[in-house]
């Protein structure tokens, strides 16, 4: 079966291999093949695996690096879903092995594979149970990639959960003194979110009906594979549209098409007076914002970060937080546009509150790593605001370019934060490895002792600050500009946050790197960066500069897809939402759920 499918779907082997190679190597490592005590071999195997996965992802996503695009590879600048792999998995529930890349997921996949290589390299100081560490690390990579690649909601959910357990153990075994508390807190928060997500998934599944989609949409959503022969394609479409009973689907693209259709069952079906789309949006949003995280469900993050070992902090801040933003962008808004529109104030409000609260909290921290963790809360607030303003303008005008600006800014902010936060955590980790403390009050004078390190670190911290010319600036400014049209108060708040951000970062730089001399403990261990550490730090710093100077390198890929999605939702607002104002939000409409499933 896979062979036959691979003949038709050129992306099958590359994507599948990229996705499952880490898990396969993890399985190999967990077998008693490599004798005990060969830790160095295990490290190199793991690093090699992440490197191969990165090369594979680069081959798929950036074919120009390898001399031109072949079948199955990603073409930048196109809006639609590409490199799609579609195989049946559980036919009884129409669950499919459906993978694909577009302008939203492709950069995040690259970010994941890239940061995984760096984090694997940053794992050299781990000396306890090395084999188990890398087994879990590689499983985590498969989980992260699966979430970004999966286009079937069931598959997405499986990978979303697959990440939890490795992360729990990575924090719980290799973490700091309060690691068990931090690990279970992380697990509980995320599991609560994902259970709510599961309920929303089930509601959407049973309310959906692909028979209502036009043949073009069935093909666009890959419900019927466009790779089929024309005759088979027509037959498949006919079979779906003439089915006697509703055909439910987990296909995220199809759910989005259904959610944006004029007679969307998600808007008419009701549960306790709430339309399914509003309720599902809310449940999904809770699940995703726990991961982002936003205030008030952010409290797991500082604990997890402070206790986690450096490479896991890099992955956590660099990739895991992005999963929340990705989920909101890929799932919440396209599938439940009505819910998104009526709850825009919530998304934007949460974003701004996180931004301001995170910044003030960072200002108050004495622990270096905790400060960086709170800066993540603050920076991810921009992502929330950028995603939220997107639908918010709709009530007054259909200026979709302002929304698009916000979403593009949020996407950029996610990628930039992936680079800068991973960099910041790595820089903190470098210091911690040497002096074994993170107390901001006891640092000072690092510039004199470790000039190369301090130069790189300060650059990364400036990127986090949002200094023009570095990667942090573009996303923040786009989000702030776009939010002006939605709410001037929020725009002012987000602009004001930049000042607090500058305050805590500059103050931290002053306390850690500047000053006459280092007076804290273990001063004699402040050695210059090793080759390995340089090899991790330099790419991060370079990328921070490249993205800051040439944001086009990201926007070229991201913008077409984001703009298409935003434009589709702007059209939806004008044509569908405004035509049925009473139905989109909560209102005293009769309970018509039983008819919702059968149009």
């Amino acid at each position, binding site marked *: 079966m896979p062979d036959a499918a691979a003949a038709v779907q050129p992306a099958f082997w590359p994507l599948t291999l990229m996705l499952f190679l880490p898990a396969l190597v993890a399985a190999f490592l967990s077998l008693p093949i490599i004798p005990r005590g060969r830790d160095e071999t295990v490290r190199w195997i793991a690093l090699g695996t992440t490197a191969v996965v990165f090369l594979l992802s680069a081959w798929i996503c950036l074919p120009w690096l390898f001399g031109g695009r072949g079948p199955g590879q990603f073409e930048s600048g196109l809006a639609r879903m590409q490199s799609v792999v579609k195989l049946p998995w559980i036919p009884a529930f129409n669950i499919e092995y459906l993978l694909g890349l577009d302008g939203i997921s492709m950069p995040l996949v690259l970010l994941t594979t890239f940061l995984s290589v760096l984090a694997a390299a940053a794992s050299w100081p781990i000396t306890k149970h090395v084999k188990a560490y890398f087994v879990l690390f590689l499983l985590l990579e498969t989980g992260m990639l699966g979430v970004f690649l999966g286009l079937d909601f069931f598959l997405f959910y499986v990978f979303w959960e*697959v990440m939890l357990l490795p992360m729990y153990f990575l924090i719980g075994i290799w973490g700091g003194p309060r690691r068990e508390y931090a690990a279970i807190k992380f697990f509980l928060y995320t599991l609560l979110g994902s259970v709510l997500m*599961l*309920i929303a998934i089930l509601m959407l599944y*049973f309310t959906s009906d692909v028979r209502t989609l036009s043949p073009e949409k069935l093909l666009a959503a890959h419900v019927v594979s466009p790779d089929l022969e024309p005759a088979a394609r027509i037959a498949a479409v006919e079979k779906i549209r003439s089915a006697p009973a509703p055909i439910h689907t987990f296909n995220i693209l199809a759910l989005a098409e259904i959610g944006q259709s004029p007679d969307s069952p998600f808007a008419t079906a009701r549960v306790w007076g709430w339309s399914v789309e509003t309720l599902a949006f809310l449940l999904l949003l809770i699940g995703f914002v726990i991961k982002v995280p936003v205030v008030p469900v952010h409290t797991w993050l500082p604990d997890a970060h402070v206790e986690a070992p450096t490479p896991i902090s890099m992955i956590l801040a660099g990739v895991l937080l992005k999963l929340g933003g990705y989920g909101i962008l890929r799932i919440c808004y396209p599938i439940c546009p009505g819910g998104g529109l009526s709850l825009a104030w919530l998304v934007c409000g949460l974003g701004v509150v996180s931004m301001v609260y995170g910044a003030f909290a960072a200002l108050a921290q004495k622990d270096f790593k905790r400060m960086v963790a709170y800066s993540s809360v603050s920076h991810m607030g921009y992502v929330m605001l950028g995603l939220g303003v997107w639908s918010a303008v709709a009530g007054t005008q259909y200026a979709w370019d302002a929304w698009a600006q916000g979403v593009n800014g949020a996407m950029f902010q996610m990628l930039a934060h992936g680079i800068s936060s991973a960099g910041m955590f790595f820089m903190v980790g470098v210091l911690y490895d040497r002096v074994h403390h993170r107390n901001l009050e006891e640092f000072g004078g690092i510039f004199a002792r470790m000039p190369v390190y301090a130069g790189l670190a300060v650059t990364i911290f400036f990127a986090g600050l949002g200094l023009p010319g570095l990667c942090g600036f573009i996303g923040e400014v786009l989000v702030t500009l776009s939010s002006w049209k939605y709410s001037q108060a929020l725009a002012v708040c987000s602009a004001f946050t930049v000042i607090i951000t500058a305050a805590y970062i500059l103050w931290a730089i002053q306390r850690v790197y500047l000053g006459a001399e280092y007076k804290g403990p273990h001063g004699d261990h402040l050695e210059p960066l090793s080759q390995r550490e340089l090899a991790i730090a330099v790419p991060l710093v370079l990328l921070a500069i490249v993205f800051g100077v040439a944001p086009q390198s990201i926007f070229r890929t991201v913008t077409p897809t984001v703009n298409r999605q935003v434009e589709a939702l702007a059209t939806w607002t004008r044509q569908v939402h405004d035509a049925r104002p009473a139905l989109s939000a909560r209102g005293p409409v009769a309970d018509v759920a039983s008819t919702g499933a059968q149009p």
Partner: protein
Amino acid sequence: MNLGVLLTDLVSDTLNVSLPAFRPEACLAVTVVLLLLCRMLPGARLLHSSWVAFGGVLFAAAYAWADLRSLPGSPWQPVSGGAFREELFGGLLVFDGFTAYVRLILTGFLVLYIPFTKLSGIPGREEETDFHVLLLGAVLGMCLMASANHLLMVFMAVEMASVPSYALAGFLKGRKAASEAALKYAVYGAGAAGIMLYGISLLGGVLGSLHLPTMATKLSALLAAGSPGGVTTALMLGGLMLAVGLAFKLSAVPFHFWCPDVFEGAAAEVGAFLSVASKAAAVALAIRLGCGLTAPSGSDAAVLAGLADARSYAAHVIGLLAVLTCTLGNLGAYGQTNMKRMLAYSTIAHAGYLMIGVAAAIALGGAGTAGAAGEGAARDAVAAVAFYLGVYLFMNLAAFAIVALLRNVLRSEEIAAYAGLIQSSPGIVVAMGIVLVSLIGLPPLAGFTAKFLVFASAAQAITLGAEKPLMIVLLAVGGLNTVFSLVYYLRVLALMIFSPPPADRVAEPLPLVSFPGALVTGLVAPVVVFGVFFAGLYACARFAGGFAS
């Protein structure tokens, strides 16, 4: 019709129709007799009774497997029309996909269980004949529970399954806790049986029959005609009393008090039996009674419509029990320090999840007639429960097997004794980890799939508008309970992995490459495989659900 014709008919029906469909049970009965005979004959004493029992059980399982495969409509047969259904022994039993499926689970359980008890060393050589006779007799009763079609048969089957269980609970003769557990179990069981019998007599008295399909038809007519108040009360009371008997077998809150004591007092092997086989049979019986009385298969729309109130009542009773059972089971597990006692509460909680599926199956009973949208919804709900039972077999048997094997090594069943076990027996800890995570219900393990299917049936009931408020509550309670359960399962796992081992531990390691290790691997492998490739098992489960309309 004279007596001769009647007898000829009876004999031909028994020999040609009933007995061929009764082969697995017959195998079990023959094995029980053989086991007893072996003890008497001088030469046969040398024969280990576990080999005799294992041989008989293999035959029973092979027949059950062959039955499942060969029934019309099964995944191995070409697609056919309506669901296969056949009444055996003059309507006392029913033979359909569900019977075949549950029977395969029960006999398959025995096939895995007897080698496990052989490896774990309980029962000892002297007592094993007694043990196997009781075991096989109880499973025979459970098979009858799954195929009962008559309330008299229901009562007999429940007793036939229960009485040997009481004796098994007290099997560790020297232990005070075991005797206390057995007594407690027996007293509770007797009380529940009495109440159930009273309920049966009330229902039978009002409806004039104990044959389930006949009762359903009469109930429908009675309800449609507007039964007088007193009669309705008697019916509701009878149903409630029947539910009490079921709830005792299911160890549903508030009839669960025997369960933690019995599990703690009895050997882990007996716990495995009660937690897997007994539960599977009780759930199967709940489905038989719930669906059989409120949405009999193959009945017409008028009968189904007349039973709407009965369905609503039954769904609410079972749903309420499910909410209580799930929540209190999970919360009760928090404070436990004994592993078997914790698993007892976990068993209670899982009974709650299963009852969510049963409530959904009952609520969806008439949905197929409402329109095309609800077609097959009840079947899917029963299929979800059946799938859960299939997964539960491996999950819980593996959990108890690990507890029993560790008891042999550590001489303790306290959770605290497992501290730092990863350093001496990493393989067993990984296996236990997989089982515990599957019990939480995290993908990609089978426990998640099972929970997903059960929640899906509740969600489908919500979208179809069948008992919507109840189903919303059940779905929310089920989801929240998954989060509650995380903490206590993970606590065990964390203790085994994060904590340092006690300084005075002298236990030898328990490697995976050994007979016990192979058994554990064999039990855990399906938990992983059915988590990812569950289409096949689900197809069987759907076939099992085929009787529900």
